[in-house]
Protein backbone atom coordinates (compact mmCIF):
# COMPACT_ATOMS: atom_id res chain seq x y z
CA UNK A 1 0.00 0.00 0.00
CA UNK A 2 2.68 2.50 1.02
CA UNK A 3 4.80 1.75 -2.02
CA UNK A 4 1.81 2.36 -4.22
CA UNK A 5 1.43 5.81 -2.70
CA UNK A 6 4.09 7.23 -4.96
CA UNK A 7 2.69 5.53 -8.04
CA UNK A 8 0.91 7.46 -10.73
CA UNK A 9 -2.78 6.72 -11.17
CA UNK A 10 -3.66 3.85 -13.46
CA UNK A 11 -6.83 5.46 -14.73
CA UNK A 12 -7.94 9.05 -14.50
CA UNK A 13 -11.40 10.31 -15.38
CA UNK A 14 -11.56 14.05 -16.03
CA UNK A 15 -14.99 15.70 -16.07
CA UNK A 16 -16.37 12.83 -18.12
CA UNK A 17 -19.70 13.81 -19.64
CA UNK A 18 -22.10 12.08 -21.99
CA UNK A 19 -25.29 13.45 -23.46
CA UNK A 20 -27.82 11.35 -25.29
CA UNK A 21 -29.36 14.15 -27.25
CA UNK A 22 -30.70 16.48 -24.58
CA UNK A 23 -30.72 13.76 -21.94
CA UNK A 24 -27.77 13.47 -19.59
CA UNK A 25 -26.12 10.07 -19.48
CA UNK A 26 -23.38 11.13 -17.16
CA UNK A 27 -21.99 14.52 -16.19
CA UNK A 28 -18.67 15.86 -14.90
CA UNK A 29 -17.47 12.64 -13.33
CA UNK A 30 -13.85 12.74 -12.27
CA UNK A 31 -11.65 10.47 -10.15
CA UNK A 32 -8.31 8.75 -10.05
CA UNK A 33 -7.87 5.02 -9.72
CA UNK A 34 -4.55 3.66 -8.48
CA UNK A 35 -3.06 0.21 -9.03
CA UNK A 36 -4.64 -2.31 -6.69
CA UNK A 37 -7.60 -0.10 -5.83
CA UNK A 38 -11.20 -1.22 -6.14
CA UNK A 39 -13.76 1.48 -6.82
CA UNK A 40 -17.46 0.75 -6.53
CA UNK A 41 -19.91 2.82 -8.55
CA UNK A 42 -23.33 2.62 -6.92
CA UNK A 43 -26.72 4.07 -7.70
CA UNK A 44 -30.12 3.07 -8.97
CA UNK A 45 -30.95 1.92 -12.46
CA UNK A 46 -30.75 4.89 -14.78
CA UNK A 47 -28.33 6.78 -12.55
CA UNK A 48 -25.64 6.63 -15.23
CA UNK A 49 -23.53 3.80 -13.79
CA UNK A 50 -23.48 1.71 -16.93
CA UNK A 51 -22.91 4.72 -19.15
CA UNK A 52 -19.96 5.66 -16.99
CA UNK A 53 -18.53 2.16 -17.24
CA UNK A 54 -18.78 2.23 -21.02
CA UNK A 55 -17.11 5.64 -21.12
CA UNK A 56 -14.29 4.53 -18.84
CA UNK A 57 -13.65 1.40 -20.87
CA UNK A 58 -13.63 3.26 -24.16
CA UNK A 59 -16.76 1.58 -25.50
CA UNK A 60 -18.52 4.91 -25.68
CA UNK A 61 -17.04 8.28 -26.63
CA UNK A 62 -17.69 11.05 -24.08
CA UNK A 63 -19.40 14.26 -25.18
CA UNK A 64 -16.86 16.07 -23.04
CA UNK A 65 -13.98 15.31 -20.71
CA UNK A 66 -11.48 12.52 -21.08
CA UNK A 67 -10.27 9.23 -19.68
CA UNK A 68 -6.55 8.65 -19.27
CA UNK A 69 -4.94 5.27 -18.84
CA UNK A 70 -1.36 4.46 -17.95
CA UNK A 71 -0.28 1.72 -20.35
CA UNK A 72 2.10 -1.09 -19.44
CA UNK A 73 4.98 0.86 -20.96
CA UNK A 74 4.33 3.64 -18.42
CA UNK A 75 2.98 6.10 -20.98
CA UNK A 76 -0.36 7.67 -20.09
CA UNK A 77 -2.78 7.80 -23.02
CA UNK A 78 -6.17 9.29 -23.65
CA UNK A 79 -8.17 6.15 -24.37
CA UNK A 80 -10.24 7.95 -26.95
CA UNK A 81 -7.15 8.49 -29.08
CA UNK A 82 -6.22 4.82 -29.08
CA UNK A 83 -6.63 3.11 -32.40
CA UNK A 84 -9.18 0.31 -32.60
CA UNK A 85 -6.28 -2.16 -32.76
CA UNK A 86 -4.68 -0.72 -29.61
CA UNK A 87 -8.02 -0.67 -27.82
CA UNK A 88 -8.67 -4.30 -28.66
CA UNK A 89 -5.19 -5.26 -27.61
CA UNK A 90 -5.76 -3.50 -24.30
CA UNK A 91 -9.02 -5.37 -23.89
CA UNK A 92 -7.46 -8.77 -24.30
CA UNK A 93 -4.32 -8.14 -22.29
CA UNK A 94 -4.36 -5.38 -19.70
CA UNK A 95 -8.11 -5.01 -19.20
CA UNK A 96 -10.90 -7.35 -18.31
CA UNK A 97 -14.63 -6.81 -18.56
CA UNK A 98 -17.00 -8.93 -16.53
CA UNK A 99 -20.57 -8.65 -17.78
CA UNK A 100 -23.62 -9.04 -15.61
CA UNK A 101 -24.88 -11.76 -17.91
CA UNK A 102 -22.11 -14.29 -18.38
CA UNK A 103 -23.56 -15.20 -21.77
CA UNK A 104 -22.43 -11.79 -23.03
CA UNK A 105 -18.88 -12.32 -21.89
CA UNK A 106 -18.49 -15.95 -22.90
CA UNK A 107 -18.54 -17.88 -26.13
CA UNK A 108 -21.37 -20.23 -25.37
CA UNK A 109 -20.65 -22.42 -28.40
CA UNK A 110 -17.14 -23.49 -27.42
CA UNK A 111 -15.73 -25.37 -24.43
CA UNK A 112 -14.74 -23.80 -21.12
CA UNK A 113 -11.08 -24.49 -21.96
CA UNK A 114 -11.35 -22.60 -25.23
CA UNK A 115 -13.13 -19.76 -23.46
CA UNK A 116 -10.23 -19.36 -21.06
CA UNK A 117 -7.61 -20.04 -23.73
CA UNK A 118 -8.94 -17.56 -26.28
CA UNK A 119 -7.10 -14.56 -24.88
CA UNK A 120 -3.87 -16.55 -24.74
CA UNK A 121 -4.25 -17.59 -28.37
CA UNK A 122 -5.07 -14.00 -29.28
CA UNK A 123 -1.77 -12.84 -27.84
CA UNK A 124 0.14 -15.50 -29.73
CA UNK A 125 0.18 -18.68 -27.64
CA UNK A 126 0.57 -21.53 -30.10
CA UNK A 127 1.20 -24.55 -27.89
CA UNK A 128 -1.98 -26.51 -27.26
CA UNK A 129 -0.61 -28.32 -24.22
CA UNK A 130 0.49 -25.12 -22.51
CA UNK A 131 -2.78 -23.35 -23.28
CA UNK A 132 -4.70 -26.25 -21.81
CA UNK A 133 -2.57 -26.43 -18.68
CA UNK A 134 -3.03 -22.72 -18.12
CA UNK A 135 -6.78 -23.04 -18.65
CA UNK A 136 -6.92 -25.89 -16.11
CA UNK A 137 -5.00 -23.83 -13.58
CA UNK A 138 -7.47 -20.98 -13.98
CA UNK A 139 -10.52 -23.19 -13.76
CA UNK A 140 -9.20 -24.50 -10.44
CA UNK A 141 -8.54 -20.98 -9.26
CA UNK A 142 -12.14 -20.03 -9.84
CA UNK A 143 -13.26 -23.28 -8.21
CA UNK A 144 -14.41 -25.11 -11.31
CA UNK A 145 -13.46 -28.77 -11.50
CA UNK A 146 -10.76 -29.01 -14.19
CA UNK A 147 -12.43 -32.24 -15.28
CA UNK A 148 -15.17 -30.11 -16.81
CA UNK A 149 -12.76 -28.21 -19.08
CA UNK A 150 -14.21 -29.67 -22.27
CA UNK A 151 -17.82 -28.86 -21.44
CA UNK A 152 -19.53 -25.89 -22.95
CA UNK A 153 -20.70 -23.11 -20.64
CA UNK A 154 -24.26 -24.04 -21.58
CA UNK A 155 -23.79 -27.07 -19.30
CA UNK A 156 -22.71 -24.82 -16.40
CA UNK A 157 -24.85 -23.24 -13.68
CA UNK A 158 -25.19 -19.45 -13.50
CA UNK A 159 -22.58 -19.15 -10.76
CA UNK A 160 -20.12 -21.35 -12.64
CA UNK A 161 -20.61 -19.35 -15.82
CA UNK A 162 -19.84 -16.16 -13.95
CA UNK A 163 -16.69 -17.71 -12.47
CA UNK A 164 -15.70 -18.96 -15.91
CA UNK A 165 -16.13 -15.45 -17.24
CA UNK A 166 -13.82 -14.19 -14.53
CA UNK A 167 -11.19 -16.80 -15.35
CA UNK A 168 -11.43 -15.92 -19.03
CA UNK A 169 -10.74 -12.29 -18.15
CA UNK A 170 -7.92 -12.82 -15.68
CA UNK A 171 -5.87 -15.33 -17.65
CA UNK A 172 -3.70 -12.64 -19.23
CA UNK A 173 -3.05 -10.96 -15.87
CA UNK A 174 -4.83 -7.68 -16.57
CA UNK A 175 -4.16 -4.69 -14.36
CA UNK A 176 -7.69 -3.31 -14.53
CA UNK A 177 -11.00 -5.13 -14.55
CA UNK A 178 -14.37 -3.55 -15.19
CA UNK A 179 -17.31 -5.36 -13.62
CA UNK A 180 -20.92 -4.62 -14.44
CA UNK A 181 -23.19 -5.97 -11.69
CA UNK A 182 -21.05 -9.11 -11.37
CA UNK A 183 -23.44 -10.78 -8.92
CA UNK A 184 -26.70 -9.60 -10.45
CA UNK A 185 -29.18 -12.39 -11.01
CA UNK A 186 -27.36 -14.96 -8.89
CA UNK A 187 -28.74 -16.74 -5.84
CA UNK A 188 -27.59 -15.27 -2.55
CA UNK A 189 -25.38 -18.22 -1.60
CA UNK A 190 -23.85 -18.23 -5.08
CA UNK A 191 -23.27 -14.49 -4.77
CA UNK A 192 -21.37 -14.89 -1.51
CA UNK A 193 -19.05 -17.46 -3.04
CA UNK A 194 -18.42 -15.32 -6.09
CA UNK A 195 -17.79 -12.20 -4.04
CA UNK A 196 -15.32 -13.97 -1.81
CA UNK A 197 -13.56 -15.39 -4.83
CA UNK A 198 -13.34 -12.02 -6.55
CA UNK A 199 -12.19 -10.40 -3.33
CA UNK A 200 -9.40 -12.95 -2.97
CA UNK A 201 -8.30 -12.72 -6.61
CA UNK A 202 -8.26 -8.93 -6.55
CA UNK A 203 -6.08 -8.95 -3.44
CA UNK A 204 -3.74 -11.72 -4.65
CA UNK A 205 -3.22 -10.28 -8.10
CA UNK A 206 -3.13 -6.64 -7.02
CA UNK A 207 -5.85 -5.87 -9.53
CA UNK A 208 -7.47 -2.51 -9.86
CA UNK A 209 -11.19 -2.79 -10.47
CA UNK A 210 -14.19 -0.63 -11.17
CA UNK A 211 -17.31 -2.41 -10.01
CA UNK A 212 -20.72 -1.11 -10.99
CA UNK A 213 -23.39 -2.37 -8.62
CA UNK A 214 -26.68 -1.35 -7.11
CA UNK A 215 -25.97 -3.66 -4.19
CA UNK A 216 -24.30 -1.80 -1.33
CA UNK A 217 -23.29 -5.08 0.31
CA UNK A 218 -21.27 -5.93 -2.79
CA UNK A 219 -19.68 -2.51 -2.67
CA UNK A 220 -18.79 -2.91 1.00
CA UNK A 221 -17.25 -6.31 0.53
CA UNK A 222 -15.26 -5.64 -2.62
CA UNK A 223 -14.34 -2.00 -2.78
CA UNK A 224 -11.97 0.39 -1.07
CA UNK A 225 -13.67 3.45 -2.38
CA UNK A 226 -17.14 4.26 -3.52
CA UNK A 227 -18.75 6.69 -5.91
CA UNK A 228 -22.47 7.32 -5.55
CA UNK A 229 -24.27 8.32 -8.73
CA UNK A 230 -27.59 10.03 -9.14
CA UNK A 231 -29.04 11.51 -12.31
CA UNK A 232 -25.73 11.12 -14.11
CA UNK A 233 -23.65 12.90 -11.48
CA UNK A 234 -21.24 11.62 -8.86
CA UNK A 235 -22.92 13.07 -5.78
CA UNK A 236 -20.77 11.55 -3.09
CA UNK A 237 -17.42 9.83 -3.02
CA UNK A 238 -14.99 8.58 -0.40
CA UNK A 239 -13.80 5.53 1.49
CA UNK A 240 -16.40 2.81 1.17
CA UNK A 241 -17.00 2.31 4.88
CA UNK A 242 -17.05 6.08 5.43
CA UNK A 243 -19.71 6.72 2.81
CA UNK A 244 -21.82 3.76 3.93
CA UNK A 245 -21.48 4.40 7.69
CA UNK A 246 -21.62 8.18 7.58
CA UNK A 247 -23.49 9.13 4.41
CA UNK A 248 -23.88 12.86 3.88
CA UNK A 249 -26.03 13.36 0.85
CA UNK A 250 -29.79 12.89 1.20
CA UNK A 251 -29.78 10.38 -1.64
CA UNK A 252 -26.94 8.35 -0.15
CA UNK A 253 -28.71 8.32 3.21
CA UNK A 254 -31.80 7.03 1.44
CA UNK A 255 -29.81 4.32 -0.32
CA UNK A 256 -28.11 3.20 2.87
CA UNK A 257 -31.32 3.21 4.88
CA UNK A 258 -33.07 1.16 2.21
CA UNK A 259 -30.91 -1.92 2.74
CA UNK A 260 -32.69 -4.86 4.26
CA UNK A 261 -30.74 -6.20 7.21
CA UNK A 262 -31.21 -9.94 7.63
Amino acid sequence: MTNAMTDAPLLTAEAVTKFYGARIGCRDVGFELYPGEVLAVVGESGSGKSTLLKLLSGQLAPSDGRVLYRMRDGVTRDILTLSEAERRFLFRTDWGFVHQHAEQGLRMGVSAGANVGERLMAVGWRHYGKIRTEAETWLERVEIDAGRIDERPTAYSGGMRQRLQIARNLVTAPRLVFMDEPTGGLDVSVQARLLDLVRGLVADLGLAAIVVTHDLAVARLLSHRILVMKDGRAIETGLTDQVLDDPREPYTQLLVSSILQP
Partner: protein
Amino acid sequence: MTAPLLALDSLAKSFTMHLQGGLVIPVVAGISLDVAAGECVVLGGPSGAGKSSVLKMIYGNYRADGGAIRVIDRNETVDVATAAPRRVMALRCTTIGYVSQFLRVIPRVPALAVVEEAATAFGLGREEAQARARRLLALLNVPERLWSLPPATFSGGEQQRVNIARGFIADHPILLLDEPTASLDAKNRAAVVELIEAKKAAGTAIVGIFHDDDVRERVATRIVDVTRFAASAA
Protein backbone atom coordinates in the same frame (compact mmCIF):
# COMPACT_ATOMS: atom_id res chain seq x y z
CA MET B 1 5.93 13.54 27.92
CA THR B 2 7.12 12.71 24.42
CA ALA B 3 5.63 14.32 21.32
CA PRO B 4 2.10 13.00 20.72
CA LEU B 5 1.55 10.35 18.02
CA LEU B 6 -2.04 11.47 17.74
CA ALA B 7 -3.45 14.95 18.22
CA LEU B 8 -7.10 15.98 18.00
CA ASP B 9 -7.59 19.68 17.48
CA SER B 10 -11.05 21.23 17.94
CA LEU B 11 -12.69 18.20 16.44
CA ALA B 12 -16.43 18.53 15.80
CA LYS B 13 -19.12 16.18 14.52
CA SER B 14 -22.83 16.26 13.98
CA PHE B 15 -25.21 14.20 11.88
CA THR B 16 -27.71 15.72 9.48
CA MET B 17 -30.63 13.38 8.96
CA HIS B 18 -31.99 14.29 5.56
CA LEU B 19 -34.65 11.64 5.76
CA GLN B 20 -36.03 13.32 8.87
CA GLY B 21 -36.45 16.75 7.43
CA GLY B 22 -32.82 17.74 7.79
CA LEU B 23 -32.75 17.14 11.55
CA VAL B 24 -29.27 17.95 12.88
CA ILE B 25 -28.01 15.76 15.71
CA PRO B 26 -24.96 17.32 17.35
CA VAL B 27 -22.42 14.80 18.65
CA VAL B 28 -19.24 16.46 19.85
CA ALA B 29 -17.55 19.82 19.38
CA GLY B 30 -14.18 21.30 20.23
CA ILE B 31 -12.38 18.12 21.20
CA SER B 32 -8.69 18.69 21.63
CA LEU B 33 -6.61 15.82 22.86
CA ASP B 34 -3.01 14.59 22.57
CA VAL B 35 -2.03 10.96 22.88
CA ALA B 36 1.61 10.05 23.33
CA ALA B 37 3.44 6.77 22.82
CA GLY B 38 2.78 4.32 25.65
CA GLU B 39 -0.33 6.13 26.81
CA CYS B 40 -3.79 4.66 27.08
CA VAL B 41 -6.35 7.44 26.99
CA VAL B 42 -9.79 6.23 27.96
CA LEU B 43 -12.81 8.16 26.71
CA GLY B 44 -15.44 8.45 29.41
CA GLY B 45 -19.04 9.56 29.58
CA PRO B 46 -22.47 7.99 29.29
CA SER B 47 -23.71 6.20 26.18
CA GLY B 48 -24.64 8.60 23.44
CA ALA B 49 -21.95 11.03 24.52
CA GLY B 50 -20.14 10.45 21.22
CA LYS B 51 -17.21 8.29 22.38
CA SER B 52 -17.51 5.81 19.52
CA SER B 53 -17.93 8.63 17.03
CA VAL B 54 -14.60 10.08 18.12
CA LEU B 55 -12.84 6.75 17.55
CA LYS B 56 -14.54 6.36 14.19
CA MET B 57 -13.41 9.83 13.14
CA ILE B 58 -9.82 9.02 14.07
CA TYR B 59 -10.05 5.84 11.99
CA GLY B 60 -11.57 7.77 9.08
CA ASN B 61 -14.80 5.80 9.30
CA TYR B 62 -16.79 8.93 10.15
CA ARG B 63 -16.10 12.29 8.63
CA ALA B 64 -15.24 15.22 10.85
CA ASP B 65 -17.22 18.43 10.37
CA GLY B 66 -14.49 20.62 11.75
CA GLY B 67 -11.06 20.48 13.34
CA ALA B 68 -8.07 18.28 12.64
CA ILE B 69 -6.91 14.75 13.45
CA ARG B 70 -3.15 14.81 13.19
CA VAL B 71 -1.41 11.48 13.03
CA ILE B 72 2.32 10.92 12.92
CA ASP B 73 3.01 8.44 10.11
CA ARG B 74 6.73 7.79 10.19
CA ASN B 75 8.21 11.24 9.51
CA GLU B 76 5.06 12.75 8.17
CA THR B 77 2.05 14.35 9.83
CA VAL B 78 -1.24 13.44 8.22
CA ASP B 79 -4.60 15.04 8.97
CA VAL B 80 -7.13 12.24 8.76
CA ALA B 81 -9.97 14.76 8.56
CA THR B 82 -8.77 16.08 5.24
CA ALA B 83 -6.56 13.29 3.85
CA ALA B 84 -7.41 11.63 0.54
CA PRO B 85 -9.18 8.26 0.89
CA ARG B 86 -6.08 6.57 -0.43
CA ARG B 87 -3.95 8.08 2.30
CA VAL B 88 -6.42 6.97 4.97
CA MET B 89 -6.35 3.44 3.53
CA ALA B 90 -2.58 3.42 3.86
CA LEU B 91 -2.77 4.70 7.44
CA ARG B 92 -5.12 1.86 8.34
CA CYS B 93 -2.63 -0.66 7.04
CA THR B 94 0.47 0.63 8.74
CA THR B 95 -0.35 3.16 11.42
CA ILE B 96 -3.80 2.94 12.98
CA GLY B 97 -5.24 -0.28 14.34
CA TYR B 98 -8.89 -0.50 15.34
CA VAL B 99 -10.91 -2.98 17.30
CA SER B 100 -14.55 -2.33 16.52
CA GLN B 101 -17.46 -3.38 18.71
CA PHE B 102 -18.49 -6.09 16.32
CA LEU B 103 -16.62 -8.26 13.87
CA ARG B 104 -17.68 -7.66 10.30
CA VAL B 105 -18.02 -11.20 9.04
CA ILE B 106 -16.91 -11.98 5.51
CA PRO B 107 -18.47 -15.11 4.02
CA ARG B 108 -16.18 -18.12 3.65
CA VAL B 109 -13.03 -16.56 5.14
CA PRO B 110 -11.77 -18.69 8.06
CA ALA B 111 -11.04 -17.09 11.44
CA LEU B 112 -7.30 -17.60 11.15
CA ALA B 113 -7.21 -15.81 7.78
CA VAL B 114 -9.33 -12.95 9.14
CA VAL B 115 -6.68 -12.37 11.81
CA GLU B 116 -3.66 -12.92 9.55
CA GLU B 117 -4.97 -10.50 6.97
CA ALA B 118 -4.42 -7.51 9.26
CA ALA B 119 -0.80 -8.57 9.79
CA THR B 120 0.01 -9.06 6.13
CA ALA B 121 -1.61 -5.72 5.31
CA PHE B 122 0.69 -4.20 7.92
CA GLY B 123 3.62 -5.71 6.06
CA LEU B 124 4.48 -8.81 8.05
CA GLY B 125 5.52 -11.97 6.19
CA ARG B 126 3.08 -14.82 5.84
CA GLU B 127 4.83 -17.10 8.31
CA GLU B 128 5.20 -14.42 10.95
CA ALA B 129 1.56 -13.44 10.44
CA GLN B 130 0.40 -17.00 10.91
CA ALA B 131 2.54 -17.54 14.00
CA ARG B 132 1.18 -14.38 15.60
CA ALA B 133 -2.40 -15.22 14.67
CA ARG B 134 -2.12 -18.66 16.26
CA ARG B 135 -0.54 -17.27 19.39
CA LEU B 136 -3.23 -14.59 19.79
CA LEU B 137 -6.17 -16.90 19.14
CA ALA B 138 -4.75 -19.34 21.68
CA LEU B 139 -4.16 -16.58 24.21
CA LEU B 140 -7.76 -15.41 23.77
CA ASN B 141 -9.02 -18.96 24.29
CA VAL B 142 -10.57 -19.39 20.83
CA PRO B 143 -10.75 -23.20 20.47
CA GLU B 144 -8.35 -24.41 17.77
CA ARG B 145 -11.09 -26.39 16.03
CA LEU B 146 -12.74 -23.07 15.11
CA TRP B 147 -9.68 -21.49 13.51
CA SER B 148 -10.30 -22.94 10.08
CA LEU B 149 -14.00 -22.01 10.10
CA PRO B 150 -15.54 -18.72 8.99
CA PRO B 151 -16.66 -16.81 12.12
CA ALA B 152 -20.21 -16.28 10.81
CA THR B 153 -21.51 -19.13 12.97
CA PHE B 154 -19.45 -18.27 16.07
CA SER B 155 -21.00 -16.97 19.28
CA GLY B 156 -20.83 -13.23 19.96
CA GLY B 157 -17.96 -13.68 22.42
CA GLU B 158 -15.99 -15.86 20.03
CA GLN B 159 -16.46 -13.40 17.20
CA GLN B 160 -15.31 -10.56 19.42
CA ARG B 161 -12.14 -12.42 20.41
CA VAL B 162 -11.33 -13.03 16.75
CA ASN B 163 -11.88 -9.31 16.26
CA ILE B 164 -9.51 -8.47 19.10
CA ALA B 165 -6.84 -10.79 17.74
CA ARG B 166 -7.20 -9.06 14.39
CA GLY B 167 -6.78 -5.64 15.99
CA PHE B 168 -3.79 -6.56 18.12
CA ILE B 169 -1.79 -8.66 15.66
CA ALA B 170 0.07 -5.82 13.94
CA ASP B 171 2.41 -3.29 15.50
CA HIS B 172 0.41 -0.20 14.67
CA PRO B 173 1.78 2.84 16.53
CA ILE B 174 -1.80 3.91 17.25
CA LEU B 175 -4.52 1.58 18.47
CA LEU B 176 -8.21 2.39 18.85
CA LEU B 177 -10.31 0.12 21.08
CA ASP B 178 -14.11 0.36 21.06
CA GLU B 179 -15.38 -1.66 24.03
CA PRO B 180 -13.20 -4.68 23.28
CA THR B 181 -14.16 -6.42 26.51
CA ALA B 182 -17.91 -5.86 26.30
CA SER B 183 -19.03 -9.43 25.71
CA LEU B 184 -16.16 -11.26 27.40
CA ASP B 185 -15.99 -13.30 30.58
CA ALA B 186 -13.51 -12.52 33.39
CA LYS B 187 -10.82 -14.85 32.12
CA ASN B 188 -10.82 -13.34 28.64
CA ARG B 189 -11.10 -9.81 29.99
CA ALA B 190 -7.90 -10.47 31.86
CA ALA B 191 -6.25 -11.71 28.69
CA VAL B 192 -7.22 -8.53 26.88
CA VAL B 193 -5.93 -6.36 29.73
CA GLU B 194 -2.64 -8.18 29.45
CA LEU B 195 -2.53 -7.51 25.70
CA ILE B 196 -3.22 -3.82 26.28
CA GLU B 197 -0.49 -3.59 28.88
CA ALA B 198 1.95 -5.20 26.46
CA LYS B 199 1.05 -2.70 23.75
CA LYS B 200 1.52 0.21 26.15
CA ALA B 201 4.90 -1.15 27.16
CA ALA B 202 5.83 -1.39 23.49
CA GLY B 203 5.04 2.31 23.04
CA THR B 204 1.69 2.14 21.34
CA ALA B 205 -0.58 5.17 21.70
CA ILE B 206 -4.00 3.80 22.67
CA VAL B 207 -7.39 5.47 22.73
CA GLY B 208 -10.10 3.27 24.15
CA ILE B 209 -13.66 3.01 25.36
CA PHE B 210 -14.33 0.57 28.21
CA HIS B 211 -17.66 0.45 29.87
CA ASP B 212 -16.31 -2.00 32.42
CA ASP B 213 -14.96 0.07 35.39
CA ASP B 214 -12.58 -2.64 36.49
CA VAL B 215 -10.82 -2.86 33.13
CA ARG B 216 -10.85 0.91 32.73
CA GLU B 217 -9.12 1.43 36.06
CA ARG B 218 -6.45 -1.08 35.21
CA VAL B 219 -5.44 0.12 31.74
CA ALA B 220 -6.14 3.87 31.70
CA THR B 221 -3.26 6.30 31.81
CA ARG B 222 -5.86 9.03 31.95
CA ILE B 223 -9.57 9.34 31.47
CA VAL B 224 -11.09 12.07 29.32
CA ASP B 225 -14.78 12.78 29.81
CA VAL B 226 -16.30 13.32 26.39
CA THR B 227 -19.35 15.14 27.86
CA ARG B 228 -17.02 18.08 28.39
CA PHE B 229 -17.02 18.46 24.61
CA ALA B 230 -20.71 17.84 24.04
CA ALA B 231 -21.96 19.94 21.20
CA SER B 232 -24.90 22.16 21.95
CA ALA B 233 -28.07 21.29 20.10
CA ALA B 234 -28.51 23.31 16.97
